[in-house]
């Protein structure tokens, strides 16, 4: 600890000097804050505006995603470049999830059907990223997502790689304390995230998910983008 601030002499400082001291401390805190802040945090500070489009939060400008490497349920690498040249809906969850994830995947199955009926499905992908790699093997993940739709893919990987992708997207998750090792729950974002063909986070869809709204929002976003 700084000896100056911890001695009784501090109380004898003139207002001007203590003001300077407070300013210095504030500056140090700011610099320290930047030193520990990660890129996702800085990006969020610089995140222009959010525009609401049919219930979706559209980021202006879209947010770049840093490099990450996961493995998908087909056993192939899934990285930030996998997001390119397509529109990708991503949901961060886990297969032990009793309610939120089955709900979301059911709704996105309906989005899939609507897009299919509109013949607008070709360049739209659906990805479920497990934030629970200790329990979610690739095989389990594959079985899980295809139960909802055979076109759905899942991915997971090292915790730090998942965190890189999640944090840059603004997705959060935390294990609920006080449960045993085999059957813990995880609090996680109930939102779905949409990435554009440049591989940037383009929009966030908060729960509850309405397939009609989501489909309308996607059409509106695409018409502005293309």
């Amino acid at each position, binding site marked *: 600890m700084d000896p100056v601030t911890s001695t009784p002499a501090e109380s004898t400082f003139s207002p001007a000097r203590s003001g300077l001291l407070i300013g210095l401390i504030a500056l140090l805190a700011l610099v320290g804050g930047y030193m520990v802040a990660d890129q996702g945090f800085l990006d969020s500070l610089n995140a222009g505006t959010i525009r609401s489009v049919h219930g979706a939060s559209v980021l202006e400008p879209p947010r770049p995603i840093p490099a990450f490497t996961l493995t998908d349920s087909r056993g192939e690498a899934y990285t930030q470049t996998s997001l390119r040249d397509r529109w990708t809906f991503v949901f961060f969850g886990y*297969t*032990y*999830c*009793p*309610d*939120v994830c*089955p*709900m979301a995947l*059911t*709704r996105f*199955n*309906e989005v899939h*059907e*609507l897009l299919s009926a509109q013949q607008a499905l070709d360049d739209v992908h659906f990805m479920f990223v497990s934030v629970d790699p200790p329990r979610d093997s690739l095989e*389990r993940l594959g*079985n*899980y997502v295809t*139960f*909802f739709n055979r076109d759905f893919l899942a991915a997971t990987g090292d915790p730090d790689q998942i965190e890189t992708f999640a944090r840059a997207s*603004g997705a*959060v*998750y*935390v294990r*609920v304390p006080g449960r045993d090792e*085999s*059957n813990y*729950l995880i*609090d*996680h*974002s*109930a*939102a779905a995230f949409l990435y554009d063909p440049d591989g940037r986070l383009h929009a966030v869809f908060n*729960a*509850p998910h*309405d*397939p*009609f709204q989501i489909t309308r929002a996607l059409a509106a976003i695409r018409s502005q983008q293309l």
Partner: protein
Amino acid sequence: MKSLLHSLILATGLTAMQASASGGLEIDDPFARAVPPGTPNSAVFFTIENEGTQDRAIVSASSPAAKVVELHTHIMEDGMAKMREVPRILVPAGGETKLKPGGLHVMLLGLHHDLVEGEAVSVTLNFDDGTGKTFSAPIRRVKRMMKHAGKHHDAKGH
């Protein structure tokens, strides 16, 4: 023989008492969510009506289908959906309480077998007055929002 008869009378009497005590509570449209093979957790949903003149509460639940059964709700906090155990679920006098996806539910933790669509699970609710109610919850997928009859078999019946 006399004691056996006595026990029988006692048992019958207790059953009758239980039935009448929880008789004011009705379970409507119960279902357990079908889950992908190997998924260890699921949930049971229903509407419970209280035709009586006193507030009642569900204080616990059990099922032969799962290792642990808990009463849960969802709260949205810090942008996260948080599932939390609740000590009781109130069913107001003359009213009803809905347990539905995204809200209150009976949580099944550690399923003993896959919940396959078309089958059913038995669920017992225990109430604050010491009575209980057992019912069968058909296993089905989440209700679709889209009403049209699509290629998917779970579109029927809505």
